[in-house]
């Protein structure tokens, strides 16, 4: 009895330690916010703008400092576009911030898997991922500091207003940053010292704390962004800050953006470390090295795509909340001048899906068992390409008068219907299902299923695919073309659910069918070099996509720094052309790529050791003698 009781007690004590540490951290954060809220000037902490208190709040608001009304001269002119400077620095900070916050999330998961399975390969891989993240951390901080300086220099009044809105919350943020730094360094450098036994629990707890602080940093910084898009806790007439820090933070877009960025960061982080693995794979000189980095690349791709699949759903929630907050803002993004950017988004997402699928198909070469499923690849590829073509079909294009006459109107009679959202929804959801199918076939490639009900299981899986595909097509066609516009959005819910059912059911059915399955040999490293370029395509496309969609999110504010509260009267208060946007996005992507190569090089350098200089004894003696 005692033999069982002791491990349980030890285990409880370990978990208790984890829980206490997490509780202490959350307590610290909450205390920080509470202290920040109570430190607001006057009684603003008690002022909440509920509808029935609007009048009273406005009265009190009148005595508070209003939002600044900016004139062109209020913006320092340094001879270069202020927006462009902030654009580049902010985007670089966001890229690296996403990387350093995301990598520890999946590193912790990999570490737990390694701990549970006792396979040291997982632990080594997780440690190597952290090496990339650690190097990026310093660059993140440098860009963060530079961004703050640039903002205070170029937009002093706006920053003064935002500082009033968020008050000493920024000090909590700085405190969290210190905590993050300490935890990160202990987590990385303590890896081998806390590798086995009870010490591993300490290390896992550190990883958990690191992620808790990192995620808190993310959501705090997100509140600044969403406040500018959909300000809360302010008097709508004067822009005066009437709410406490919590009311200022918890705007309608805060949580949708938190979720969207968290998931996107993981996908992005997975893709970047995948590129690192691909680079190392291509540079590897021994079969062992190739096998290790092939496996690392596969794991990274798995993480990136796993996080990428639910991303459209998080994006859907964010967009729906933007529409709910301001229909004008939503329509501007999806149907106004910014709508063309979604054609580019289509190209990017299709590139991601094609690259991910291609990598999986190439990876099937690692197992002889994949022969059973290769016939399906051409059909999956066909659907992906057709989906891509539908997605990039514009609703209308700029044409000459002569072309318009030939066309017989504004939209092409055949391709026109493919230009609207229902067709694109059908395309994207079918592409997501196909990507999952590729993944499912890849997972089955190295297994010989042994359960007695495998035919029934396969029939059930096939039925789910067929019903989901028919559902997606029917919902898109019926709601998209034969009902009122207001119901079009509703069709997406059916399509989302159908896709999710396929993914969840696929994972469940496979996990049941794999019980007792014989695993075939997988030859890691036996994959074509060209497949590694798919692992480069992923982070590059993710980077471009992040920069592009970040621009769209920011641009829906149009000529407002803080939407409807602080008007942007700077020389850059216009929406630029798509070419300008493309050039800026390309510039930041190339810059990020350059820094990334630097990081890879540094990460490599840390593992390089110079051999001792051997001195030729005779030659040395001869020199001494002369």
């Amino acid at each position, binding site marked *: 009895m005692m033999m069982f009781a002791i491990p349980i007690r030890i285990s409880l004590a370990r978990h208790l330690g984890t829980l206490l540490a997490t509780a202490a951290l959350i307590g610290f954060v909450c205390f920080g916010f509470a202290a920040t809220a109570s430190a607001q000037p006057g009684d603003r902490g008690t002022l909440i703008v509920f509808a029935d208190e609007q009048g009273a709040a406005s009265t009190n608001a009148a005595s508070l400092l209003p939002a600044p009304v900016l004139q062109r001269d209020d913006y320092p002119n340094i001879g270069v576009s202020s927006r462009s400077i902030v654009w580049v620095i902010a985007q670089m900070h966001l890229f690296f911030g996403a990387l350093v916050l995301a990598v520890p999330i999946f590193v912790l998961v990999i570490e737990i898997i390694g701990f549970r399975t006792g396979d040291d390969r997982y632990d080594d891989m997780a440690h190597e991922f952290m090496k990339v993240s650690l190097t990026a951390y310093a660059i993140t901080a440098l860009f963060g500091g530079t961004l703050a300086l640039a903002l205070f220099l170029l937009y002093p009044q706006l920053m003064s207003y935002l500082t009033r809105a968020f008050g000493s919350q920024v000090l909590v943020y700085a405190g969290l940053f210190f905590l993050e730094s300490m935890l990160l360094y202990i987590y990385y450098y303590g890896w081998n010292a806390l590798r086995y036994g009870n010490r591993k629990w300490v290390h896992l707890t550190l990883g958990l704390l690191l992620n808790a602080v990192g995620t808190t940093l993310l959501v705090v910084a997100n509140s600044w962004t969403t406040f500018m898009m959909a300000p809360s806790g302010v008097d709508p007439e004067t822009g005066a800050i009437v709410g406490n820090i919590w009311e200022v933070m918890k705007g309608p877009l805060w949580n949708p953006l938190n979720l969207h960025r968290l998931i996107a960061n993981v996908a992005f982080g997975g893709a970047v470390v995948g590129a690192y693995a691909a680079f190392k794979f291509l540079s590897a000189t021994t079969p062992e090295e190739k096998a290790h980095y092939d496996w690392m690349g596969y794991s990274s791709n798995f993480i990136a795509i796993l996080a990428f699949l639910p991303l459209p759903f998080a994006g859907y929630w964010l967009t729906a909340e933007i529409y709910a907050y301001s229909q004008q803002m939503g329509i501007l993004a999806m149907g106004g001048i910014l709508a063309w950017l979604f054609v580019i988004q289509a190209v990017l997402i299709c590139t991601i899906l094609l690259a991910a699928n291609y990598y999986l198909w190439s990876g099937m070469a690692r197992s002889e068992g994949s022969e059973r499923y290769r016939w399906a690849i051409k059909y999956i590829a066909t659907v992906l390409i057709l989906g891509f073509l539908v997605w990039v079909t514009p609703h209308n294009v700029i044409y000459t*008068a002569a072309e318009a006459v030939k066309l017989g109107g504004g939209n092409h009679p055949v391709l026109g219907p493919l230009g609207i959202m229902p067709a694109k929804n059908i395309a994207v959801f079918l592409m997501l299902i196909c990507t999952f199918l590729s993944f499912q076939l890849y997972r089955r490639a190295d297994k010989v299923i042994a359960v007695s009900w495998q035919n029934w299981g396969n029939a059930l899986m096939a039925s789910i695919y067929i019903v989901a595909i028919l559902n997606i097509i029917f919902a898109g066609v019926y709601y998209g073309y034969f009902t009122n516009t207001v119901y079009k959005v509703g069709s997406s819910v059916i399509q989302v659910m159908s896709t999710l059912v396929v993914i969840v059911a696929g994972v469940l059915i496979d996990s049941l069918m794999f019980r007792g399955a014989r695993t075939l040999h997988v030859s890691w490293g036996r994959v074509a070099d060209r497949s590694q370029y798919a692992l480069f395509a992923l982070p590059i496309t993710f980077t471009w996509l992040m920069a592009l969609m970040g621009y769209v999110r920011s641009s829906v504010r149009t000529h407002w720094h803080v939407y409807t509260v602080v008007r942007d009267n700077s020389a850059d208060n216009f929406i630029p052309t798509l070419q300008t946007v493309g050039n800026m996005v390309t510039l930041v992507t190339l810059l990020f790529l350059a820094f990334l190569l630097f990081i890879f090089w540094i990460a490599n350098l840390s593992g390089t050791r110079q051999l001792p200089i051997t001195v030729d004894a005779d030659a040395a003696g001869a020199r001494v003698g002369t």
Partner: protein
Amino acid sequence: MNVLSRTLLFSVALVLAFSGVTYMLPQMEGPAPKQQVINVGELTMESFVALGKELYAGKGACALCHNELGRAPDMLAFNVTEVSLQRIADPRYEGSAVDAEGYLRESMLRPTEFVVAGFGTKGSNDSESPMPAIDKAPAQLSALEIDAIIAFLQEKDGEPISVPLPVATAETTAAAESLPPPAASQGPEEVLTRYGCAACHSILASEATLGPDLNDIAARQSAAEIRESIVNPAAVVGDGFIVMMPEFPDMTIAELEMIVAYLTAAADDQT
């Protein structure tokens, strides 16, 4: 070629390919509204209506939702005055308007006062409108601008304009935000060239046939009809033609009148 060069080349090529896609798409800028002072003393009812039309599509952003896509009632698709009176007579109506003008003003200032069935905020059971008050941010239209939109809506239906022209007082100005007027053209030929009329129409030295011949347009249309066709190309479409003439939001009233006068005079010269 070593690994670094190959991967770098591939990466840069991919990035540039994405950038290239942006060059294949239409290039438009979205300028922010700029401060403009409207000199009330110079307003005519026609320019007042034209201002309303410009605000409807521009700063007021009405057309963003009020269009054929069904997000909000398409004001250009029905007689706004008649429908306004129907709404006032609706048993659900609890507002204070007694005429169409009052109803239109009320629906712009307090959109939730009466929500047309099916157009309410999701989940509100048509008790709340998704439309922001037009005098508040982000649109922030002035009382004069709201009146101009009402005048435009009444005029486009051929209804009598009930809103009075703003009273001109010495240097009375209303701060309004709309696009700054471009530099006015010097003569009618310059105006016709500037707006590319000759690309489709037979006019000046052009013998283009894509649009109706403008040399004898005055024989077929009155000055008012010509004016309307320029301001609203879809108003009257000649037999055998389709609507593909763009609108000219930057065209000033003076330029419009120059074209109308020129085309009318051109016909007189021929007769």
